[in-house]
């Protein structure tokens, strides 16, 4: 019997190893698919050009706007998204599924269309937008507009990811906290959030990355103040790729550094 099963089993090994290699190759190919274009981008510009742009006030302004708006959008998305994610995580049923569907829908809309639709709601011609303009706080062509656009496009990620993170926190710990006389808020702050931390961080990371890279909806809601993606587009149209690539590289570097800091500080 030992002989039978041994031969049988060694057959499985070879097969299994082959498939393991195939799997690793598949993953590697995808990784290359991310890396190669990124490398091509970085190699296309002499480092001097990038440094030169770092002194260009327009670029600096757009970098400031991008960092600021993406940070605010991420904070807003997180602040508003975590309660929604928590509710989704702790509830079951048809309503939950429908709400989750609603959260995913903004992703389906091309960002440009999303931006246009946001205009109908927040543009100066809409009641809400008009009132905001009257109050001296216009919701388009302003940092607020950038944030509204980025939040619409990027916030679903933190909601979906944080939902999964909250689901992984043992509810018993929350009951334990509350049975110690702590309110829901205290419990959320001291128990649930820290424990869902790494998952939430992943969602925050995705949201920040998507927000800082957002172009279509931002362009519609707020061509000014210019974010880096808009600036890249403008640079491209004005003087072509050689002009646009350094800004794109700066965007990638700034975003990478921001994400690195975010992930280092948070963990």
């Amino acid at each position, binding site marked *: 019997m030992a002989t039978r099963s041994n031969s049988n089993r060694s057959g499985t090994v070879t097969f299994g190893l082959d498939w393991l290699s195939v799997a690793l190759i598949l993953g590697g190919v995808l990784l290359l698919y991310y890396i190669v274009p990124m490398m091509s981008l970085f190699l296309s510009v002499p480092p001097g050009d990038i440094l030169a742009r770092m002194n260009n006030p327009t670029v600096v302004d757009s970098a400031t706007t991008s960092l600021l708006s993406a940070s605010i959008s991420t904070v807003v998305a997180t602040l508003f998204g975590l309660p929604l994610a928590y509710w989704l995580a702790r509830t079951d049923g048809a309503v939950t599924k429908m709400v989750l569907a609603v959260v995913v829908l903004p992703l389906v809309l091309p960002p440009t269309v999303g931006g246009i639709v946001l205009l109908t709601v927040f543009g100066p011609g809409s009641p809400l937008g008009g009132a905001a303009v009257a109050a001296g706080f216009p919701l388009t062509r302003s940092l607020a507009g950038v944030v509204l656009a980025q939040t619409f496009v990027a916030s679903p990620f933190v909601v979906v990811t944080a939902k999964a993170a909250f689901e992984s926190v*043992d509810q*018993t*710990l929350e*009951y*334990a*906290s*509350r*049975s*110690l*006389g*702590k*309110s*829901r808020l205290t419990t959320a702050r*001291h*128990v649930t959030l*820290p*424990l869902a931390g790494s998952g939430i961080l992943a969602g925050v990371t995705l949201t920040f990355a998507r927000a800082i890279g957002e172009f279509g909806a931002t362009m519609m809601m707020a061509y000014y103040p210019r974010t880096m993606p808009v600036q890249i587009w403008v640079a491209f149209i004005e003087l072509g790729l050689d002009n646009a690539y350094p800004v794109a590289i700066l965007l990638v570097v700034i975003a990478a550094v921001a994400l690195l800091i975010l992930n280092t500080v948070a963990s």
Partner: protein
Amino acid sequence: MILELSQLSKAYSQFDFGPVDLTVDEEVLAVLGPSGSGKTTLLSLIAGITGLDSGSILLDGRELVGQPLEDRHVGMVFQEGALFPHMTARENIEYAATASDHVDELATLLELEEVLNRKPPTLSGGERQRVALARSLATDPDVLLLDEPLSSLDAPIRKRLRDELHNLFESLEIPILYVTHDQRTATALGDRIAIVRDGGLEQVGSPSTVLTRPTNRFVARFTGNENLFEGSVTDRAADGARVRFGDLQLQTTASDISTSAVTVCIHPSRVEVETPIVADGNRSVNTVTGTVARWLNEGSVYRVDIQIEAGSLTLTANVRPPTFERLTIDNGSEIQVLIPQESIHLIPELE
């Protein structure tokens, strides 16, 4: 403090809990039952973790039903401790403590000084449970609920912690519900024991009553009464009934049996295989002979299955090691079995 539960009930899709009526004074009530019987549900309802369908929970007259769990002042020690894994032992206790000097007091009481700065994953099971207990006590609860705090512990630690809890519980003057599936823990810690099955209470009483006078077969089996036989009462007298089961006919001290059909219940720890020198004239003993069919060394005790010669009955006896060795018991050995009259418990069988 007194905790009064009345008509507590909660329906799940696969399981109905209650209605349960129960009053717990400043005592330890051990809640004993198999897994899935509703022990944890009972605690969850009292703590407010689970909403109930109907019923009332009065704590010194204050209605707890409808109050969120954070306002009930009910301390709960969860099965695996439910310590916050991102906080040290000290932080766990401090998080709960109403006064900060409380922490060190409790740490001393529960011998936790050494581990206060360690995080839960690095604690042993016993340390974890003591921290969980300290954390619950730090809130000065009005009721203490414990959900199998010892079930995951190693035997020697379990034994030691059980002793510590015994002393601690006596010093707390609040109602304590202690859930366990281990009959020995329930017996050792409980002032009273409540046997739970399928969401209902089967029997509530002192440990010795529940163990020696179970009211039905389930309680009997769950408290280790392995010798259960269908029998019938043949003779009723003031000083006890005679009962027939299999081919045996034995004298008992049972006097208030209403039915003829009974379950005969003899705890293996009450079946003797040796006559003591301190023979006691007042105690009458049934004597039967049998053959050893099987034995199992269980460490502190040997479990011996004895085939009774008068019939096809198998009686299990717990035999202490010195006795086992002295009688050189082995499969096939003949053996004399002594069953004290008062050790035969009769459970009336209603149609």
